[in-house]
């Protein structure tokens, strides 16, 4: 009886909204599921989107990487569009495949999570009714022309550009002709429900794992080992810190193409025994609590999760003042800021923070308080609102097509029109 009732309720729930309000069909497109900030945010979003209100589908360029495991139950099938180059026949084939999938399945909204998804999704959605949400989560992916111009193209043709910091919004506005209304800022969400682990216990665990005495102090960096993350400056800063501070060790969490180079650098500096490379860790967000100071050494950033997570864990952060970092950290208030690519300044700030126990604790506490505003629920809600808005304007536009004289005003609203119309209305205004 109970079971019956339950089933009935379930059926009711799923069908009721469908009847009242058809579920927008949203296709998520992502490069892959490797460990990274963008992928992490996408997965957290996919976990939480209200499937009663949205018909969520998932596609990837490649279904690779450990993060997929967290959502496999929810999305048992993932369509793959293996792109190997922008300039070959396969690229055209993949675009056409994606296009026919979206047309066949009557997708309403394509949510592209990164640059490569955008490069695939944007052409595929041309001349269809699919509305595209593109994402830009870096100020600049690289100096390569294809990345700079590709991103501009994506931003121009997408219906909405989702960015995760004011800094990126400003960059887009100052470097391209994308209209301000198209850019939506939704800050990264943080999993605040999870209780951050106890600092002392994590510290001791880390000591144990690395075979060190419990009185050592840890300076940690959590980032992919890539050029733009500035590890070389971190290592250079490390030897400067060691010069003036005893018992300090450095923990490098993450993996990447530069791992060997950075390890070699540490050995060349003669500090190999003080710098610990622990590789990729699924429990990275836990490790922060074990650090005395967490460092972000990036040369450019969007809205770094590493800073958010460290602040949540109640650890003082020394970060380079790039991109969205300045929206999170005010120097000497919620953290410490240093100029990018400057090992000397970084070392000075770390040394200062280590020496000022009290000040550091106060800063960590303020930082922890500050990041409470970035909850996962808020992020998900904002994305859902974006879907709703895109869906309704899409519907109204579809409605207005046969009777143009009717809701013209609505159709010409700057935020609602198709790209071409948006352009027309933009130029009139």
């Amino acid at each position, binding site marked *: 009886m109970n079971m019956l009732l339950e089933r009935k309720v379930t059926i009711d729930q799923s069908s009721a909204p469908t009847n009242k309000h058809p579920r927008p069909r949203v296709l998520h497109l992502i490069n892959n599921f490797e460990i990274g900030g963008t992928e992490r945010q996408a997965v957290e979003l996919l976990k939480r989107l209200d499937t009663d209100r949205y018909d969520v589908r998932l596609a990837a360029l490649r279904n690779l990487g450990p993060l997929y495991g967290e959502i496999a139950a929810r999305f048992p099938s993932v369509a793959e569009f293996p792109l190997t180059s922008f300039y070959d026949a396969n690229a055209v084939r993949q675009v056409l495949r994606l296009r026919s999938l979206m047309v066949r399945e009557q997708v309403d909204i394509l949510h592209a999570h990164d640059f490569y998804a955008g490069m695939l999704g944007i052409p595929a959605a041309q001349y269809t009714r699919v509305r595209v949400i593109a994402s830009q989560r870096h100020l600049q992916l690289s100096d390569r022309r294809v990345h700079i111009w590709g991103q501009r193209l994506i931003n121009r043709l997408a219906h909405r550009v989702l960015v995760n910091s004011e800094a990126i919004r400003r960059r887009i506005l100052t470097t391209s002709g994308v209209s301000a209304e198209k850019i939506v800022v939704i800050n990264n969400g943080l999993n605040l429900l999870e209780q951050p682990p106890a600092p002392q216990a994590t510290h001791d665990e880390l000591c144990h794992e690395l075979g060190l005495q419990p009185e050592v102090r840890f300076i940690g960096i959590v980032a992919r080992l890539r050029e733009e993350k500035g590890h070389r400056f971190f290592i250079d800063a490390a030897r400067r810190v060691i*010069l003036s501070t*005893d018992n300090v060790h450095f923990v490098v969490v993450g993996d990447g193409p530069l791992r060997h180079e950075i390890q070699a650098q540490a050995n*060349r*500096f*003669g*500090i190999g*025994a003080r710098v610990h490379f622990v590789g990729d860790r699924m429990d990275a967000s836990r490790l922060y609590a074990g650090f005395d100071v967490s460092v972000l050494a990036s*040369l450019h950033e969007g809205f770094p999760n590493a800073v958010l997570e460290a602040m949540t864990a109640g650890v003082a952060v020394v970060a380079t003042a790039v991109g969205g970092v300045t929206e999170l950290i005010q120097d000497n208030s919620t953290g410490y800021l240093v100029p990018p690519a400057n090992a*000397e300044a970084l070392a000075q700030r770390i040394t200062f923070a280590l020496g000022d126990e009290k000040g550091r604790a106060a800063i960590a506490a303020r930082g922890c308080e500050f990041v409470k505003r970035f909850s996962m629920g808020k992020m998900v809600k904002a994305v859902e609102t974006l879907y709703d808005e895109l869906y309704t304007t899409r519907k109204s536009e579809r409605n207005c097509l046969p009777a143009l004289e009717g809701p013209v005003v609505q159709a010409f609203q700057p935020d609602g029109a198709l790209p071409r119309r948006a352009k027309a209305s933009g130029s009139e205004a």
Partner: protein
Amino acid sequence: MCGIAGFVRQAGMATPPEMARATIKQMCDVIEHRGPDDEGYFVRDDVALGMRRLSIIDLATGRQPMSNEDGTIWIIFNGEIYNHRELRHALIKRGHVFSTRSDTETIVHLYEEEGERCVERLRGMFAFAIWDQRDHKLFMARDRVGKKPLHYAFVRGTLIFGSEIKSLLQHPAMERKVNPNAISDFLSFGYVPDPATAFQNILRLPPGFALTLKNGHLRVYPYWDFNYSGESVHNPTRGEGDYVAQLRELIAESVRLRLESDVPLGAFLSGGIDSTTVVATMAREMGRPVKTFSIGFSESDYDELAYARTAARHFHTDHHEFVVTPDVCKLVEEIVWHHDEPFADVSSIPTYVVSKMAREHVTVVLSGDGGDELFGGYERYLVDDRRRGFDCIPSVIRKGLLRLSRSLPQSAYGKNFLRNASLAAPARYVDSLCYISEDAKHALLSDETRRGLGNYNSADAFANLFAVPASPDPLDHLLYLDSKTYLPGDILTKVDRMTMAHSIEARAPLLDHKLIEFVQSIPAGLKLRGRETKSILKKAVAGLIPEEIINRPKQGFGVPIRKWFNGELRELLHDTLTDKQTRERGLLNQRAVLAVLDEHRRGRRDYAVHLWGLLTLELWHRGFIDRRPCLRFSGAKRSSLETLAAGVAVMPEGITA
């Protein structure tokens, strides 16, 4: 000849020993070009000494760091001691046991015997550091005229030192900060005068100075100075003939001393009096053809090769000449990297290329450097002589002239002459030395930079030196000034860095200190006679070198930089001086820079020297202060010889004119 580096930490500062070893190795690795043959380190407690060796004498056992018999004294040494055999004999007599036949070991035992005063006995070029374990003392010294460099910084209780600044920058306690006064000095003189460097905290040990560090106390003191103060040495009973004879003898001795080498040896031959004199003496002393190297430019009006060829034929040398093609632009970055500091003397370019060429054949070269400062060879001595008449202009009128000159636009003809005439003697000489006049510099600097400089005036340091009563004779006075400033700051810096960039050792026989002390005693009237410069030298070498070289007109500026700036180098110059990075730096007044660029481009004024200075200044900032490119620039990106120049002509031995 080598590169040295090291540091002495404050007792009690605990740095992991492996880090000390890594640091000293890095400090030496970055100057590998100074000594590609070997490396050696001494690390103990709070001392680290390191060196890169270019093997020249005692190839097998001359390894460094080297110690005395019981390992209580350790030395790292860069240079050559030409009287080391003589010293060695005396030391052996006194019971010292030598384990090598190198000049390095001589210094160690001499230090044991005489302490810090050992430096007074050394004849040659040197920069060395001695760690005295018994006394816990560091002793460093630099040669009398400044042929070998030595830089140091005293930060947070650590003394860090090295042949080149780039070594010091490898040490984790160092910070890269620009010294704004030095930038002002650089724009005035084209180099940063001793003891400052372009970096805050980093100093250069001046020539003829020694340094000790003991118990955290640093002492820097002079042990030798040029002495033109005349009366005691000027002997009225000696005639010109006596001076000429002795001069000849001393030049021959200086050259002969510098022929000792276990590796091939040659000479730079420019075709001027100085280098030809050196080659002539070598030809006489060596008994086999001298390998000579010359450089010219494909722009024919700058071609000095003809004179060099004349000399080469005359002395039957094994002559190699080289023509720099405009492709030389690729060099600019390399040259800036090797200088460590902004450096505006364009003759770096030919010196760099000729060193590269010579290195294919020899490891040691003799050069004629220093002749102009010693014997009074520069045109400006004549100019000063003429303008000395301005001294009698009343100061009121002078002030008026100055105001008049200031009111004229930057590009007006006669402006510089008016200004120069309006100045008092010291300021006038400084003004005539300057690459960029005080007024022009004022216009080029941004408001912010000028504010940062405050009351600092680059001419002041010179004015102080000018006030030293070096000699009652005006010419000797100027020679003293130049020997203390331009010679070590510009000429010798250029020669050391550009030759060492290619691991080749340059020796300057005309700057032997015995020779210098003698020439100082020659009355000034015999050096500058009427309109004739270097008169006494010309007399001494008459008959030794061809007449046409003695009588050739003095050629000033030998590098066709102006043409390059209008052609090959134009894009690099324009882009570097006007792009975003330069503008954001805010060092210069961008409008003034654009005006200079524009006037140069239109050919209205020749601003090539200014522009070269500004270009190297900006490239230096990028390479050394903005860290990002510097990291990628981990060493000299050496261009291959073929890309730099063309037309290597080897002249067969025995060709006669």
